[in-house]
């Protein structure tokens, strides 16, 4: 964890840059808007404003033609008003309309609509006394410097992508396959502003190219993709070639018996496991053990914490770093998980080592809990980097060393089956092959898997070199505790943004992986 001396307040953008360059709100424009909202509710104690502005350009290509190119922006403004007694009245209002009259009307009527009965002092829980120290967190803070904005991506959004895609379009009509490609570019700016002085602004770009190719009988398929914040680092034609190659290898699919086998998981598969593991690191303990996770910590003495204990193979290291050169993310807490953390969107975040050399180092904690235990606060690791602290092995070497196993190009629909054990389930797709005696033997039917990720990560035979993996437009799996019914997720919220936050993972060879059943889906 960085010390205060190692951090410095750094402007994430040059304030003199002209607004016309940005497809999203610049810092100056976002602050002006936020101050306006704050001023409108000044006599009612308006305390915080959250603004998110994102622009997406998405091109969808299928079977030799461009289906459509979608281009647009989404603006979200949320603000909370405070009450006279110092408690923040939990009024949450959302809008995407920048209309002075409308905003003033809403702010003026907000408190009249929803009132809060203050909790009597004798009824307060002891933890609530910690709210006072938290007030200091609304003051000015310093942030890690990050580099998430690339003008090349913005330029590609402006220029349109047609000039960049003819080869992809031609490839999607080749080789008697059905091909679908998605190309997405995104730019986003976020501002959190609080009356005591905390202001957090960040901007970022991101892009992703994915392609799926299917055989005419709908039974075989291949997939490949790449994600990077800098459009100039992406080669769409390469993506297409790999997807087509896997699809061609997937003709003449045969079924094999499910069961426990050695699995060589490509990065596309490992990434799905790792993303689904994010809630695993939650330290929260409830009264119902079925709702606790494997790392839940006791409220009082009893079950010991697993911090400091060996939980997975010693070659595995997992961390989240805003300054990760392979990915990175905004250096402050973002809206989405704050509801359950008593935390402040906009509060600075630093690198977190989750597992180092197989040892559990940190857990996701409520801000109040972190204060009480005198440990760092850490949010869910929706961005994760997994790497080997030992020798790395290529996929070809893994296959060559495998007598009997399965190569999985990608997983899909991965989700938690049971919170208490964090047992995961999902399915293979877009490339599943039987390995016999060190070689790919044949394409096989897809499986469903059921696995305990911690147990699987204790059966690792080999680890490769990590790469960032795109997720495509797959279903978002939001932990049920985050209550999707209550508050709609922001379009670019932590769980729902697209492209997804960077997940950088290696291929892995895992013995006795549980392929529990055959499935019909191709």
């Amino acid at each position, binding site marked *: 964890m960085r010390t205060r001396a190692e951090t410095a307040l750094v402007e994430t953008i040059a304030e003199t840059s002209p607004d016309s360059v940005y497809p999203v709100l610049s810092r100056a424009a976002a602050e002006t808007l936020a101050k306006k909202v704050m001023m409108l509710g000044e006599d009612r104690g308006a305390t915080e404003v959250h603004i998110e502005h994102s622009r997406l350009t998405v091109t969808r290509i*299928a079977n030799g033609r461009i289906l459509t190119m*979608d281009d647009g922006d989404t603006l979200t403004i949320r603000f909370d008003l405070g009450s006279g007694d110092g408690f923040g009245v939990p009024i949450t209002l*959302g809008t995407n309309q920048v209309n002075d009259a409308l905003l003033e009307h809403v702010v003026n009527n907000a408190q009249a*609509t*929803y009132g809060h009965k203050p909790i009597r002092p004798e009824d307060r829980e002891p933890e609530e006394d910690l709210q006072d120290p938290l007030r200091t967190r609304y003051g000015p803070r310093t942030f890690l410097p990050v580099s998430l904005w690339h003008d090349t991506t913005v330029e590609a959004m402006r220029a349109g992508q047609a000039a960049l895609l003819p080869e992809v379009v031609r490839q999607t009509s080749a080789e008697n396959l059905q091909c*679908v490609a998605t190309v997405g570019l995104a730019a986003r700016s976020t501002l959190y502003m609080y009356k005591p002085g905390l202001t957090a602004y960040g901007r970022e770009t991101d892009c992703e190219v994915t392609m799926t190719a299917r055989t005419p009988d709908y039974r075989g398929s291949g997939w490949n993709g790449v994600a990077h914040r800098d459009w100039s680092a992406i080669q769409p034609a390469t993506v297409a070639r790999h997807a087509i190659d896997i699809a061609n290898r997937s003709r003449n699919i045969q079924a094999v018996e499910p069961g426990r086998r050695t699995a060589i998981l490509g990065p596309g598969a490992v990434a799905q496991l790792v993303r689904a593991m994010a809630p695993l690191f939650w330290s929260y303990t409830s009264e119902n053990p079925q709702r606790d996770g494997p790392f839940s910590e006791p409220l009082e003495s009893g079950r010991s914490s697993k911090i400091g204990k060996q939980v997975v193979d010693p070659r595995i290291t997992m961390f989240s770093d805003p300054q990760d050169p392979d990915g990175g993310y905004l250096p402050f807490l973002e809206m989405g998980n704050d509801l359950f953390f008593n935390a402040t969107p906009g509060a600075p975040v630093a690198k977190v080592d989750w597992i180092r050399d197989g040892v559990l180092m940190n857990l996701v904690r409520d801000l109040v809990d972190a204060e009480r235990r005198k440990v760092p606060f850490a949010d869910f690791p929706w961005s994760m980097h997994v790497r080997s602290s030992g020798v790395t092995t290529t996929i070809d070497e893994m296959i060559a060393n495998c007598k009997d196993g399965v190569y999985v190009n990608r997983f899909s629909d991965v989700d938690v089956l049971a919170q208490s054990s964090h*047992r995961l389930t999902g399915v293979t797709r877009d490339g599943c092959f039987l390995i016999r005696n060190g070689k790919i033997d044949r394409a096989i039917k897809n499986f469903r898997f059921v696995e305990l990720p911690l147990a699987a990560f204790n059966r690792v035979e080999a680890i490769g070199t990590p790469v960032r993996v795109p997720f495509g437009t797959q279903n978002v799996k939001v932990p049920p505790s985050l209550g999707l019914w209550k508050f*709609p997720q922001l379009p670019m919220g932590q769980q729902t943004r697209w492209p997804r936050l960077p997940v950088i993972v290696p291929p892995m060879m895992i013995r006795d992986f549980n392929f529990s059943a055959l499935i019909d889906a191709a």
Partner: protein
Amino acid sequence: MTTRRAFLAKASLSVVGVGLAAIPRRTYAIPMTARQPVNRLIPDTVDPETLRRLARQAIEAAVAAGATYADIRVSAQRVFKFGGAPQGYDPWEGYAEFTGGFNCRVRVGAGWATVYSGDLTATTVVQAAQRAVATARAMSAVTTTPVSWAPAPVVTGEWATPIQIDPFTVSPTDQAWLATALLEAARRRHDVDSTAIFDWTSETRVFASSEGSFLTQRLHHARPSVSVEIISPLFQLHPIKLNVPSIAPCSAGFECVTGPDRQDAVCQTVDDGLHLGSLSLGELDVGRYEVVVDGTSMATLAGETLLPALELARAIGDGDRGRSWFGPIESVLDQPRWNDQLTIVSDRTVPQYGAAKWDDEGVAIDAFPLIDRGVVVNYLSTRANLGVLHDWQTKRGGERSGADGRFTSTHGAAVSWSPTHAPMGSTTAVTMVPSPTGLSLEAMVKQVQNGLVMRTLEATWGDQGSAGGLGKPLALFIVKKGQLTRRFPHDSGFVQFGAARLWSKLAQIGNASTMEGHLCKVLKLEPFAAQVQAVSAPAGHFHEIDIYDPRKS
């Protein structure tokens, strides 16, 4: 429409009635202090004429720039969500939102482009239309494969969801009182907890096209829900949780949650849960069982395995929506597959959830069968891909060629899940038609000699083609000689299903008394928006369903 005063008189009586007749276990502090209606907070400030003017300007700009075709959806929307399970001094939680936006779609030659934004100003919509035309023109230079575009009548007009009480004219305080009354109806019994959620959407949506269609619709959608949970110490580790079936998503106003019959329904659900919870716990062996499922579970299975698969874009491999096990269409359409009791209808007519008069391509909405007596007869399509179905029918020739008119219209299946999303072939509501000669749930159970009853299957884990998955019911019971004998602990039994096999084992469908609903949420849109579909289904009886315990694998 009932006036607010009349509603309050009626609702207040209901609240007083509960207060006098019951002895509440707890006294709830209702901290809502606002007597002002919700629309004081989030007014309807964008008048329909403004939206219509923006729509006209966009179409004119697109045509002037050279669009072959252009359409636009312009919308102003208000949302008020309200709910929770208040205990003691915890207040109800609420969220209010007002949003606007448009989605302008144009075609130039073979190129399509869509531009969207939340900025409802003339400058933005005009520039967006022009930008879309420029992009589409660039696309048409790269792709030359023509896209078919099904014809549709040019329509003009207005429509509004018929409601009695506008929920935005009701204050949060009154909504809290009514929700509390519903919760109290459950909590009058010992150790029963409950949760209530009210979710209201009011929207004005304008559609315009370069063909001349011009439509204004005022839409009201409601997503209320009340669930009860038996939480005595005996059940704490193995809770029984049931939804109140008659409080379900619909296109209606506040009246859908008022009335003393709602509290009766809550009490009935509590009684049902207490009866089920009174059964002793037992151990469940994995294996294959004869199973009777309630309407909620049937709706979940249909929503997981049939509804997504019936999207035509998935079935023909167009786009990134995912796969469908109902493809290729040549091997699926009009092929007898299942029990002839199985009929599924896409129904966006009032009072179904998401009802409207025209869809988001300006096509008139009507209820139409997707599966008719065990045969897939249609898909959810848009004007862009309807031609695939028409071509299939034409190629088949013979007596069916063009005879039945199924594929001359999309039947209003184009849905924009938010104002900024382009339309896609989908639906907001499907109904599995109950059997007129079918049995009640109890009567179906009586027919089972050795099997299971599944209640409230809500959680499922599917796959990319909707071809199967795992599901975890909230309650699973063993049946011996037609009687419920034991229930199984939470987490002990998952159902594992392959979609094709599952529906081939359907023995019978229940009657109208067994109808229940389930909300399917698909979160697959970019930018993110929740795609919420209401599925209604009767109870069902399957010859075989696999029960699986992942802990034993």
